[in-house]
């Protein structure tokens, strides 16, 4: 049984150590904070200028001046802070953020990531994706292993325009958790009932079985 989106998010959350500062991208990554236990202090940064972002409580009303990078209403935890954009990206580019969690359209064997548009002529928004992918200490990707139509997303080379080159450290998919070292990929774990042969067949480059 492949992992569901929530199970992928929970799997990522389980691997985030106490004390890390984490930037989360749009889509599946936004599910991750919900799986961090209350007693583990993890600080979430959003590039529009907040450290210590938390979900809006059920009784709190949305504030138009308090949003995340996906423009959804949020709240701030005690110990959080607000700041302007250039300082926010100094945190991101300057290696001060422990982890970035992003979605992806394609990942290459060399760790390249394409996650903002599918061809050069398309009008798309890069937003903060290139900064986050290039700047964070660790980059983990939350994604489905193949597309809805069965096309591979983990490829020898990306065919879509790159967001950043040679940056991906781990992939958390519905089939497996994979870790990269240069152009070598190792399976950290497989989803229940998924064989190494199945995961390999859904991956466009060689992957090594779990130790």
């Amino acid at each position, binding site marked *: 049984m492949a992992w569901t989106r929530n199970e992928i998010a929970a799997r990522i959350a389980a691997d985030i150590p106490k004390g890390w500062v984490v930037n989360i991208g749009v889509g599946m990554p936004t599910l991750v904070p919900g799986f961090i236990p209350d007693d583990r202090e993890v600080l979430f940064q959003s590039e529009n200028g907040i450290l210590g972002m938390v979900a809006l409580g059920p009784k709190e009303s949305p504030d138009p001046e308090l949003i995340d990078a996906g423009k959804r209403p949020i709240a701030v935890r005690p110990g959080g802070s607000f700041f302007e954009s*250039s300082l926010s990206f100094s945190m991101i*580019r300057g290696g001060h953020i422990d982890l970035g969690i992003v979605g992806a359209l394609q990942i290459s064997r060399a760790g390249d990531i394409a996650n903002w548009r599918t061809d050069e002529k398309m009008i798309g*928004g890069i937003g903060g994706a290139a900064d986050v992918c290039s700047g964070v200490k660790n980059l983990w990707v939350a994604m489905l292993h193949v597309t809805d139509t069965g096309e591979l997303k983990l490829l020898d080379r990306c065919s879509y325009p790159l967001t950043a080159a040679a940056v991906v450290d781990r992939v958390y998919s519905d089939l497996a958790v994979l870790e990269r070292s240069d152009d070598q990929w190792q399976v950290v774990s497989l989803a229940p009932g998924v064989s190494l042969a199945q995961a390999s067949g859904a991956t466009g480059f060689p992957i090594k079985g779990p130790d």
Partner: protein
Amino acid sequence: MNDAIRDVSDAMTIAVGGFGGAGFPEELVRALEDQGRKDLVIISNNAARFERLINSGAVSQIICSFPFGGASATLRESIANAGVELKLLPQGTLSECLRAAGSGLGGVLTRVGFGTSFAEGRSIINVDGTDFILEPPLSADFAFVHAELADRWGNLSMRGTARNFNLVMAMAAATTIAEANQVVEVGHISPDGCDVPGIFVDAVVQCSNLRDARDIRFGLDT
């Protein structure tokens, strides 16, 4: 508002603060829509809130990082129909190039975009063995910014994530106009709580409609 922006003329570059609706100078932009200018260059993180300005034929170019989310079909059409040139920069590069212009610096050396299409046509500078993309500074004739509080010296105080691009837009422009939910006496804004020192701001206007009357939308497309 109309009076505050009377010196904006055709073909000027206008830097506009805000991220989505947060900290966006809605009233100054509405006034600009009424002004009937042509060939404006807009620098702002998002493009979605300039749809009326684009449809009126006032805009020739938009420099931004995230023009709009996937569902903005009408804006996509507007940009195509009006022949607006979209120039995309990674968000951190956009803010840093504005900061560089406002800081008297000759550009930004960044690794962001290296090995991607964002490096095309750029000079590559090697510093101690590492290659960087050289991005030129980004300046503007006018900046429009939004604050919670402003005083007549131009000191600004923001709330929450409304700070965003407002500081760098104010720094990068020859003339900065700030709209504020509340214009207060000099001394009311604590020196500890001043987000934009008045030195970067040239004029301050009181918003006529407080936040509750602003066009508040949440979600990716705003």
